[in-house]
């Protein structure tokens, strides 16, 4: 029998449809007269973090602050308390293409201020795993925690890690997060991309889903939840023979309904849309695939089943 686990909740923060001001990219898009011309980057609302940062004297980074808030929202949505996820049977994994901006900020500060510009506390936060580590400490999670920094598939790679951990009985539930956080010099890089292709638009995002054993969700009265299992297409084709699952039969869903590229968070943003907008039911019985066009060459080998509809995550 194939292992199957349920997605019992998902939360997403995506940006308001207001482009960031055009500006000098190296200074964080704060001034006008941009050398790159107009381009469109979409930012999340960070006002809550900005207010908290003054109070907590830099204990958080932007992604770590938002992740903590979103975990609380996710728990409420799925009927769990923080005590329920405390301990070694809960894990946490993140996926991002560019990871934490603070990693790059260390280099910039060193260039500007020399060794005295490097603060020990801020350096300790300058790892791509800081958001998950800070959340693990705050919520008492003691299961596996890892940070994926891969491609546009980063969020789905993180989902696959979570699946592995449950399948190998390392834990019973995993919080799976995907995010992108824009700050210099990443904003400069994205501005250059937009200049090269004016139709492109990039957005910050953070998404979190809860993957857990079906019995745990059922014990809270949650049934008929979206289910993740090993892809039957992968099982039939065999490993190393045909992993181009995105090229099979059926219809590919549009992963960017709002036209914004969320980079490493794209996969989980799309998954969140699927879970919350009844897209599957609208499509009838036709096979569906969640596919990142032009980016993914290999599938992650998992099938999502929502209301008796199966789709490949590729």
């Amino acid at each position, binding site marked *: 029998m194939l292992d199957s686990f349920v997605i019992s909740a998902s939360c997403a923060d995506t940006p308001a449809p207001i482009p960031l001001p055009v500006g000098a990219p*190296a200074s964080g898009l704060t001034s006008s007269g941009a050398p*790159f011309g107009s381009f469109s980057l979409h930012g999340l609302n960070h006002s809550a973090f900005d207010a908290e940062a003054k109070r907590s004297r830099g204990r958080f980074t932007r992604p770590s602050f938002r992740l903590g808030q979103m975990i609380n929202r996710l728990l409420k949505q799925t009927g769990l308390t923080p005590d329920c996820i405390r301990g*070694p049977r809960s*894990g*946490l994994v993140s996926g991002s*293409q*560019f*990871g934490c901006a603070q990693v*790059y900020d*260390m*280099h910039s500060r*060193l*260039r500007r201020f*020399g*060794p005295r510009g*490097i*603060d*020990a506390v801020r*350096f*300790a936060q*300058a*790892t*791509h*795993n*800081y958001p*998950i*580590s*800070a959340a*693990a*400490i705050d*919520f*008492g*999670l*003691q*299961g*596996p*925690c*890892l*940070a*994926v*920094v*891969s*491609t546009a598939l980063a969020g789905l*790679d993180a989902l696959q890690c979570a699946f*592995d*951990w449950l399948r*190998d009985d390392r834990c019973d539930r995993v919080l799976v997060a995907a995010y992108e956080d824009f700050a*210099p*010099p990443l904003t400069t*890089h994205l501005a*250059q*991309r937009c200049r090269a292709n004016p139709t492109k638009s990039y957005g910050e995002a953070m998404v979190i889903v809860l993957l857990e054993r079906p019995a745990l969700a059922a014990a809270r009265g949650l049934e008929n939840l979206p289910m993740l299992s090993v892809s039957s297409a*992968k099982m039939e084709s065999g*490993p*190393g*023979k045909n*992993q181009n699952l995105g090229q099979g039969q059926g219809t590919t869903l549009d992963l960017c309904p709002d036209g914004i590229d969320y980079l490493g968070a794209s996969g989980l943003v799309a998954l969140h849309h699927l879970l919350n907008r009844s897209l599957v039911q609208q499509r009838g019985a036709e096979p569906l695939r969640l596919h990142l066009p032009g980016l993914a*060459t*290999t599938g*992650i080998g998992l099938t999502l089943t929502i209301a008796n509809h199966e789709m490949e995550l590729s």
Partner: protein
Amino acid sequence: MPRSVVITGLGLVTRDAQDLAAFEALLHKGGKPPQPPQQFDASRFRARNAFATPPANGARNGPQADAAQRDFLTRAPSREELDCAGHGLAAALQAITQAGLSPDELQKAGCVLATTSGGLMDDFADLTQDQDADVQPPELLAPASAAQVLYRLFGLSGPLCSFSCACVSSLGAISHAFSRVRHGEAPVMIVGGSDRMREADFAGFNALRAMDRDSCRPFDTTRRGMMIGDGAAMLVLEDEAHALARGARPLMRLSGMGLATDSHHITSPNAQGLIRAMQQALTQAGRRAEEITYVNCHGTGTALNDAAEIEALSAVFDAPDMRPVIGSTKGTTGHLLGSAGAIETIATVLALQSGMAPVMATTHNPEETGFPLPLAGTPQPLSGRIAMNNSLGFGGLNASLILEAYDSHDSQGSSPCA
């Protein structure tokens, strides 16, 4: 039914060793003293030494790959690709060559790479300070760029992923690759870590006062901290049946992995997470603690790390008369950060193969650990065939891995997965 996973190839680049033979010799005699890195002016910092590869190393290794190795590459790497992934490319070529994979067999493989900060974003930031210029190939800026470079240059078609989780990055990557092979999703995975010396990391560990000025002395009463290094270490993980079917000779069996978190403190480790990681690895391997003959510890030479690690080891290996030899190779190689777990996995493989624990040549005043230590002048032969490798990382991350000397009688007898 999970498949059996074996290691069929190893490769590495460190400051003092660019191949397995040189590395094995280094492990048995100890390394040269650390020196100021040439990549930047280290005189501005409190601690000024490191195990840094020469700046040209990454670029030098790629183009000089011998003719047989070039057969594995779809094209010659660019200068920028070598800047980004040169160490990893050189180490991977060694591992693939040792594994005896044909170019066709290699194409079925996937790749998982670990990095500390990865990509060329620092270079990009420097060059875009005051000008509007397209200064780097945009595909080389993200942390996963090195993994993508390897994937493209080798023409791979299997799974691709990259991890950056401080000092457990490599073992995180190995755990992911292990799962891909173990669950029959890929017959071969190229996995490991690759990093180059980064001034911001050097500055950061200085700011934390975590770096020793002179040498790294794990489990030594006079220790003052770590000593960072750079380089790469790569392994070929393979489905055992696949390896045997193509006539390869497995070097070692990878039988279990553990992953757990302290949820205690960002920079101060706690023993409980490592205890759980080790127990998880033993359980997955189906082994008991007393079967372990050697533990390659994280052993950074910081007081906090060493204390937490000894506490955890004492809890898991609780029979005082059946304790494994423990050691750290960071006094010899430096702390390779994102690549540490991979280089130490290779050191552990070599220890089991040679039956001798790598010497801790810089530890002259050992603290009382309750475990036998392989000190200079007191070599520690290994009587068993199973070893463990541990990594701890910022944020309370812990990982543990179990290696077993290869014995064909342990085979599961399954058919090749591809």
